[in-house]
């Protein structure tokens, strides 16, 4: 048990139980998003769908990486994952990124994707705000994830015609910010 690590967080004034719950809820959001994005990616077909498929796949893999990166921190802080996968799904910090009623409607799928990313951006901003200057390790991890979620949002929002973001898709790599937590 990372006893001193927990003590440092508490001494800094962070409510440890609330922080652990937030991390579990966000880990749930990442793993469930990985699942729902699998369905979205499978259905991104045709002239328009194929254009989106690659970035949907990158976002899917990176969301799984976020889950993997969050789990050790949850246990370091004395938390644990729910035993039931159903409970884990239902405590997600973000709503299910469900396939639109018309799976051939690529714009509708893009809206689901961008809303999921926006929920994540808000969620990690919230954790960064709670931990900044107090829990350096959780802050560092949340900031790394936030950087990737912001890029995901920008990829999808550009396709929705919301304007240029200046970002470009990955070139063979994944998780440029979070990979240091996966070694």
């Amino acid at each position, binding site marked *: 048990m990372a006893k001193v690590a927990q003590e440092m967080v508490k001494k800094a004034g962070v*409510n440890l139980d609330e922080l652990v719950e*937030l991390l579990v809820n966000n880990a749930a959001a990442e793993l469930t998003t990985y699942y729902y994005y699998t369905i979205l990616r499978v259905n991104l077909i045709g002239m328009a769908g194929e254009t989106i498929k690659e970035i949907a796949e990158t976002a899917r893999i990176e969301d799984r990486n976020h889950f993997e990166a969050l789990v050790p921190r949850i246990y370091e802080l004395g938390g644990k994952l729910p035993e039931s996968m159903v409970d884990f799904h*239902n405590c997600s*910090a*973000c709503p*299910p990124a469900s396939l639109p009623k018309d799976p051939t409607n690529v714009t509708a799928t893009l809206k689901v994707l961008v809303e999921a990313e926006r929920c994540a*951006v808000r*969620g990690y901003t*919230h954790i960064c*705000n709670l931990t900044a200057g107090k829990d350096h390790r959780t802050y560092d991890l949340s900031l790394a994830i936030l950087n990737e979620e912001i890029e995901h949002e920008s990829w999808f929002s550009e396709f929705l015609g919301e304007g240029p973001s200046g970002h470009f898709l990955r070139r063979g790599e994944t998780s440029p910010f979070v990979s240091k937590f996966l070694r």
Partner: protein
Amino acid sequence: MRTFTRKELARYDGSGGIAYVACEGKIYDVSQSFLWQKGKHQVIHRTGADLTEVLKGAPHGSELLERFPIVGSLVDPD
């Protein structure tokens, strides 16, 4: 439209299946929201309360609350 005092609003904390929150004098019904399950949002925020001040420090504005039905107004917002 119905009016609520803070005390009345506090009864709608999600425990009875109905969850309301107030913001800038308006009362929103968030009972059906995935993000307000069990009367909680992002672990630290509770339903049955006026969130006007809390929202100032949140990573989003009141525009997200506007997605929910307005069920009344808060008579003692200050």
